[in-house]
């Protein structure tokens, strides 16, 4: 059994999910942190909802939503020529949906603690909103960005209920490392399970520690 395929696929999936999720969650979180709209609490509640459904069940509904027979799935087919389910794109789509709360909520917490004063100062210094957001709000919220990135990356690595359901576990296309470990446990191949889990833990630990060390460096340099 070659493992590099699933490992590589997992890293691709988690990485892409993290990046897209940050790109998607940041505007949502920013809006939530600054709006005074009446429906804000409802939207906040919505962003937490994907969590309450069991992953497999969520996967089941995503399967329905993304199937070529549904409007969304059909639209995707006309757009790209291939079905959304059982494809890498589908996995990414599903992972983003499922991990959304882990990205939105820490970002919102971080954005809310910035305060309007900093953005005002940036504006009087000639920064457009977008510029001020990039050059002031984001750096000041970096701890929140980091948390969002770590949580969504790690959660995508570890979650397999949704992935299994939406991805159909196709070797080379949608079989990720978590499914591999799961299969090993299911088939009583505990030795493989131990090796894979141990490897995953050590790898994740090293990567996360490096990330946090670098984060600290950044803070020290006051940049």
């Amino acid at each position: 059994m070659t493992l590099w395929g699933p490992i590589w696929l997992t890293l691709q999936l988690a990485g892409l999910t993290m990046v897209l999720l940050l790109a998607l969650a940041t505007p949502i979180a920013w809006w939530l942190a600054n709006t005074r709209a009446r429906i804000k609490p409802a939207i906040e509640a919505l962003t937490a909802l994907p969590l309450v459904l069991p992953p497999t069940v969520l996967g089941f509904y995503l399967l329905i939503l993304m199937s070529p027979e549904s409007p969304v799935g059909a639209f995707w087919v006309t757009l790209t020529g291939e079905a959304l389910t059982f494809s890498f794109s589908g996995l990414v789509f599903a992972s983003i949906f499922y991990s959304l709360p882990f990205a939105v909520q820490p970002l919102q917490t971080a954005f809310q603690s910035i305060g309007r004063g900093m953005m005002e100062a940036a504006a009087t210094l000639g920064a457009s909103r977008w510029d001020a957001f990039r050059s002031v709000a984001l750096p000041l919220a970096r701890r929140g960005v980091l948390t969002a990135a770590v949580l969504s990356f790690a959660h995508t690595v570890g979650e397999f209920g949704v992935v299994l359901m939406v991805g159909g576990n196709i070797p080379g296309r949608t079989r990720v490392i978590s499914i591999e470990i799961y299969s090993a446990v299911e088939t009583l191949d505990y030795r493989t399970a131990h090796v894979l889990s141990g490897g995953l833990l050590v790898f994740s630990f090293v990567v996360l520690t490096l990330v946090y060390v670098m984060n600290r460096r950044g803070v020290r340099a006051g940049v």
Partner: protein
Amino acid sequence: DRITVAVAANFLTTARDISAAYSAETGHEVALVHGSTGKLFAQIVAGAPFDLFLSADAARPARLAESGRLADGLPPRTYAIGRLSLVHGDKTEPGTLEEILSRPDLRIAVADPAVAPYGGAARDVLRTFRQDGWDRGLLRGESVGQAFAFVATGNADAGLVALAQALTFDREIWAMEVPETLHEPILQDAVLLKRAGDNDAARAFLDFLGRPIATEIMAAAGYRIPP
């Protein structure tokens, strides 16, 4: 008395009917615990408070017997033989078994052969009709339940699933039985676990599985009864 029966997820609906009949007859209460066979096995090894284990295969009960986790003197016993069926998303006649399975462009859902006995059987069948690349375009579910869901939600064109599922599904779906000669038999074994060694109610349930009232339920649900 109350007994706890661990049952493989694919047999759950049938087990519910049987335990209802058993309770009606004996007055004992039956608590059904379901999960994938692999999970239930791991839990039994970890000391789960189960009295009986209705597995979806024969391998894991055998492992339990080897490691001495069964009640004395009661080897695993086959209570049902699973049957495979081909389901298809189109309700009108989509073709014969061979026609459907040999079409390379169809997306066929099966349970993961590595994990689930029905998956192993499905692999045998596919190998018969597709010489090479038997697993091209194959979708693997964690269980037959998931494989079925792939078809039911319109994401897979066809699926090799348990006959029992096709029969219990509450919507109409096109299904055909797969001849048992095309795959190794799907023996489903039951065992009495060590902690239930002197639990009469549990022993009685094991016997009850062989009684006509139970075998009729199983047969009606799509299982073959072992001789």
